[in-house]
């Protein structure tokens, strides 16, 4: 009876609770010692033991189960961490250094912080971690509940009923979940600053690591040396049993999945939230890592020594396969009536499960609170939040709620999936999920070019692949999704089969999933980083993370504060989030170490503000802390991101000023142009002045004659008729000249202003020539001038205003008449074609035009100043007007030497209609 009593359900429960209370007592003691400044965990052995939280009930029960079916296949999961610790100690060291410097509280915080304090990334990592770790927690619940249910059957060794058939409230796993939630809350959320070390928890974990190790070793030693006569005897027995010996000889098990498993566990030892918690967050001294890098692998080695022997012993003991190999650690002692050992083994398994659940729940709740809930709350209504008197209560509730939620999620998963799958399979799904963090994490520590965009892309793709190739098929296999989805692919699309995606066949499902998820993850991460452009905050964080050694002296120095906040404000803010007592204590401690008297100071200096921000960051995450401190400092805070923003703006300003320089260069050019235009205007002004003066002169000259002779006529009534006649003729001529001059000035002004009315038509130049000859005949009257016309019989038509064309010809003839030889004047007109254009030249035998004058002669009032005694004066505008007209018709006018002597004034015009050279017949007809 006594025997039975030992393993009755109440006694098992009592022992279990007693054990958990012992753990709590250790934790409480550890915390007290820490508060008193006499840490019990500040040594590398405790540190290494706390890392052994890696060994959960997966190790305790699952490894044996795995070994019983797959031989050595249980091993890679421990080779990975060993490799990481032995080979990548430097990576862990850097990780610890970064997290200490930035007061990082979780893996989500780490990734978010590295990629520009991105709240989105933090949220994503948290979500993935929660979803990924849920199966892992389910695994622990399953292990504890099965082991409990197996143990209560003592002395019978019977597998417990399927849990999902039992109502939730009577389900052992549910009770286990609740109890563990309570303990996790007790351990992890007694105070708020998550970055402050949970020294008590670490102490308890170290203790439970010892307990589970000893329990496992005890069972191992009993099997090897109690049941058998040492290892040789055991394996000799195994060799005699074909079913057992096949495990070690058959090539079926193979080592194909080893690389995948090793890789996975190498990543997991860094990326698992609970490992991150104990290895990085809870590390008190970087130097402890030096010993831990061999102590922890040593622990793994020791705990694995007896895995295979226990598996073999179990197989030999239960040859019919009725007992689940996952329970051998428990059932072998039970079958041998070793109730004390069985109970100890149960406690060892409980210990392994509890350690994992508590640390994982604390780590996850910190992430959920700091990286998922707080950013959302702050964003939605952070003013309201900031105005609340004491938020520390809210924070605690949030964390506690998160812990309960995480465990209930684990239970739900266990209930839905857990029954049909082995412990190790469940665990590997979790490993594969958290392995998705590895690229962003490790990449972020060594590759400055990695960007937030790349991290988000990689994580999303990798996680999606994990979901599709690993988690969904598990749901299908548990009957929650149609199995056809796995076997035939969704909608029967073979290419999309989750276990043979895109036709990739022949791999085990885990390797397959790892291949696709990591390929998508790393691909997205690298490509996203290469093609994205990091923001200023990302660049500065990248530099701080990657170059942590060179920034070692600048712990927390990522803020530069301009101005300051009052100490009262800071204290109030701190009190809101971590409680008044903690806030006071923290500030007093700061004042002591910095030799400050806070009571006398009103303004906090930059270092103190940074200190408060780091404290807050521990409680609510880096991003939220920045927002809160900035709110207190009333916008006078310049954080590194602001500095970077300013720098960014500066570079924009530089670019802008560069553009400005270009603009000012353009402006300079414009100014030059304006100056030139101004000069030109001045010239024009002078010219206008000259023009008016000249016009005035030209008008006054005929007026003078008119007035003089009019007055002479008026004053001298006695003049002879002939003289009177002569004077009157002069007056009339001068009046005509005056009229002509005025008309021409007006014409010219109109033409120059573009306001001339042109009547452009298709014009026969012949007609214009004839009219011009008729109009100038009076000029020749009484002069000995020979005027000849030589024109082609067929002149091409031009597009012109006929009257104006005539005016040009008249001007040229008048000019020639004026300047031709006084005694034997000869003027000849030539008309024809020159280079396909209409050509007209007026030649005289006068003095000609000197080369220098050939340009300006066409300017206004630039008549050649050669004496023209006895000849009628021109207006000085004729050639200027002619040039305006010819140029308007698209032609050109110039002066050259006439053959022999004299000047030849010529112009050409574009032809509007080519000459239709008449057929010879027609010509002869006209000749008739």
């Amino acid at each position, binding site marked *: 009876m006594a025997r039975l009593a030992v393993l009755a359900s109440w006694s098992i429960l009592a022992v279990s609770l007693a054990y958990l209370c012992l753990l709590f007592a250790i934790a409480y003691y550890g915390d007290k010692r820490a508060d008193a400044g006499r840490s019990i965990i500040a040594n590398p052995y405790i540190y290494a033991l706390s890392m052994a939280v890696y060994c959960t009930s997966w190790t305790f029960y699952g490894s044996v189960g795995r070994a019983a079916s797959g031989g050595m296949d249980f091993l890679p999961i421990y080779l990975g961490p060993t490799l990481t610790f032995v080979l990548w100690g430097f990576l862990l060291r850097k990780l610890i250094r970064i997290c200490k410097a930035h007061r990082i509280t979780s893996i989500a915080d780490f990734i978010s912080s590295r990629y520009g304090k991105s709240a989105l990334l933090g949220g994503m990592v948290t979500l993935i971690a929660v979803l990924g770790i849920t199966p892992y927690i389910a695994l622990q619940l399953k292990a504890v509940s099965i082991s409990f249910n197996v143990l209560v059957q003592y002395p019978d060794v019977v597998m417990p009923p399927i849990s999902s058939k039992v109502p939730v409230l009577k389900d052992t796993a549910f009770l286990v979940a609740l109890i563990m939630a309570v303990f996790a809350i007790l351990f992890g959320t007694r105070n708020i600053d998550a970055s402050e070390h949970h020294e008590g928890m670490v102490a308890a974990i170290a203790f439970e690591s010892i307990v589970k190790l000893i329990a496992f070793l005890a069972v191992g030693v009993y099997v090897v040396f109690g049941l058998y006569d040492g290892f040789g005897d055991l394996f000799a027995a195994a060799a005699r049993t074909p079913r057992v010996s096949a495990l070690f000889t058959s090539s079926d098990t193979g080592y194909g999945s080893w690389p995948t498993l090793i890789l996975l566990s190498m990543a997991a030892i860094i990326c698992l939230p609970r490992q991150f918690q104990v290895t990085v967050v809870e590390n008190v001294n970087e130097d402890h890592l030096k010993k831990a890098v061999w102590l922890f692998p040593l622990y793994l080695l020791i705990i694995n020594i007896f895995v295979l022997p226990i598996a073999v012993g179990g197989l030999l003991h239960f040859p019919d396969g009725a007992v689940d190999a996952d329970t051998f650690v428990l059932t072998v002692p039970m079958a041998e009536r070793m109730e004390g050992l069985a109970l100890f083994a149960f406690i060892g398994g409980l210990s392994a499960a509890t350690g994992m659940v508590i640390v994982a729940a604390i780590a996850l709740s910190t992430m959920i609170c700091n990286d998922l809930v707080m950013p959302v709350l702050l964003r939605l209504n952070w003013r309201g939040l900031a105005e609340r008197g004491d938020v520390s209560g809210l924070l605690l509730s949030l964390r506690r709620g998160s812990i309960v939620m995480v465990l209930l999620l684990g239970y739900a998963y266990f209930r839905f999936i857990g029954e049909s799958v082995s412990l190790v399979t469940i665990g590997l799904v979790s490993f594969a999920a958290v392995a998705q963090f590895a690229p962003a994490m490790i990449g972020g520590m060594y590759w400055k070019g990695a960007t937030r965009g790349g991290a988000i892309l990689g994580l999303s793709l990798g996680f999606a692949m994990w979901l599709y190739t690993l988690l969904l098929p598990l749901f299908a296999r548990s009957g929650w999704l149609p199995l056809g989805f796995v076997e035939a692919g969704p909608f029967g699309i073979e290419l999309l089969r989750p276990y043979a995606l895109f036709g990739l066949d022949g791999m085990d499902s885990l390797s397959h999933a790892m291949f696709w998820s990591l390929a998508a993850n790393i691909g997205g991460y690298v490509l996203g980083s290469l093609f994205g452009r990091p923001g200023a905050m990302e660049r500065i964080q990248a530099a701080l993370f990657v170059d942590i050694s060179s920034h070692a002296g600048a712990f927390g120095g990522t803020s530069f504060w301009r101005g300051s906040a009052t100490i009262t404000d800071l204290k109030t803010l701190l009190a809101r989030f971590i409680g008044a007592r903690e806030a006071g204590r923290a500030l007093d401690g700061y004042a002591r170490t910095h030799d400050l008297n806070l009571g006398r100071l009103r303004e906090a200096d930059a270092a103190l503000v940074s200190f408060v921000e780091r404290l807050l960051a521990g409680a609510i995450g880096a991003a939220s802390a920045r927002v809160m401190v900035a709110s207190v400092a009333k916008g006078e805070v310049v954080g590194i991101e602001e500095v970077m923003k300013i720098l960014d703006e500066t570079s924009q300003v530089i670019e802008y000023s560069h553009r400005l320089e270009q603009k000012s260069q353009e402006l300079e050019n414009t100014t030059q142009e304006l100056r030139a235009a101004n000069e030109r205007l001045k010239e024009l002004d002078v010219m206008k002045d000259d023009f008016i*003066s000249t016009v*005035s*002169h*030209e*008008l*006054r*000259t005929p*007026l*003078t*004659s*008119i*007035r*003089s*002779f009019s*007055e*002479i006529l008026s*004053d*001298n009534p006695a003049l002879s008729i002939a003289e009177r006649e002569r004077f009157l003729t*002069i007056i009339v001529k*001068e009046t005509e000249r005056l009229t002509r001059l005025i008309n021409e000035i007006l014409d010219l002004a109109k033409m120059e202003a573009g306001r001339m009315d042109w009547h452009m038509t298709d014009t026969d130049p012949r007609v214009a020539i004839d009219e011009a000859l008729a109009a100038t005949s009076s000029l020749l009257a009484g002069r000995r001038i020979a005027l000849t016309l030589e024109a082609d019989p067929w002149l091409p038509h031009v597009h012109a205003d006929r009257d104006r064309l005539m005016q040009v010809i008249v001007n040229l003839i008048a000019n020639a008449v004026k300047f031709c030889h006084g005694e034997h004047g000869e003027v000849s007109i030539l008309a024809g074609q020159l280079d396909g254009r209409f050509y007209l030249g007026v030649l005289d035998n006068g003095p000609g035009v000197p080369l220098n004058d050939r340009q300006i002669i066409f300017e206004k009032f630039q008549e050649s*100043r*050669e*004496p*023209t*005694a*006895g000849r009628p*004066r021109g207006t000085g505008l004729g050639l200027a007007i002619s040039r305006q007209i010819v140029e308007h018709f698209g032609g050109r006018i110039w002066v050259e030497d006439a053959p022999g002597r004299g000047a030849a004034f010529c112009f050409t015009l574009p032809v509007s209609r080519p000459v239709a050279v008449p057929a010879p017949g027609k010509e002869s007809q006209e000749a008739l």
Partner: protein
Amino acid sequence: MSRTVLVVEDEANIVDSLSFLMKQAGFEVLIARDGDTAIRMMQSRPADLVILDIMLPRRDGYEVCREIRSNPDWASVRIIMLTARGRESDRRKGLQLGADAYVTKPFSTRDIVTRVQELLGPAP
């Protein structure tokens, strides 16, 4: 002995009118149609008064004026500048160069005769 007036002007009709007016007033009239001729005529037979147009071919009125004033032999020669350019700057320039009067075209015939008579004084 009647006094001589040299009319230096290139516009034929104005020469006509001036020589009529001067002859009528009892002066002997000499005519030059450009600056060079004017100087040559002064050298061969200095006039008592020169009516000098400014806009002249070859050598303009200002130059002729300067030439006359630079020769001490012609110190007593009176000069009336005659111009169609009405700008004040032109007028000042003429007077600075030593002209005795400055008459703008179109001039009053009576006025110019009076000016000539005033400058030459009553007939000796």
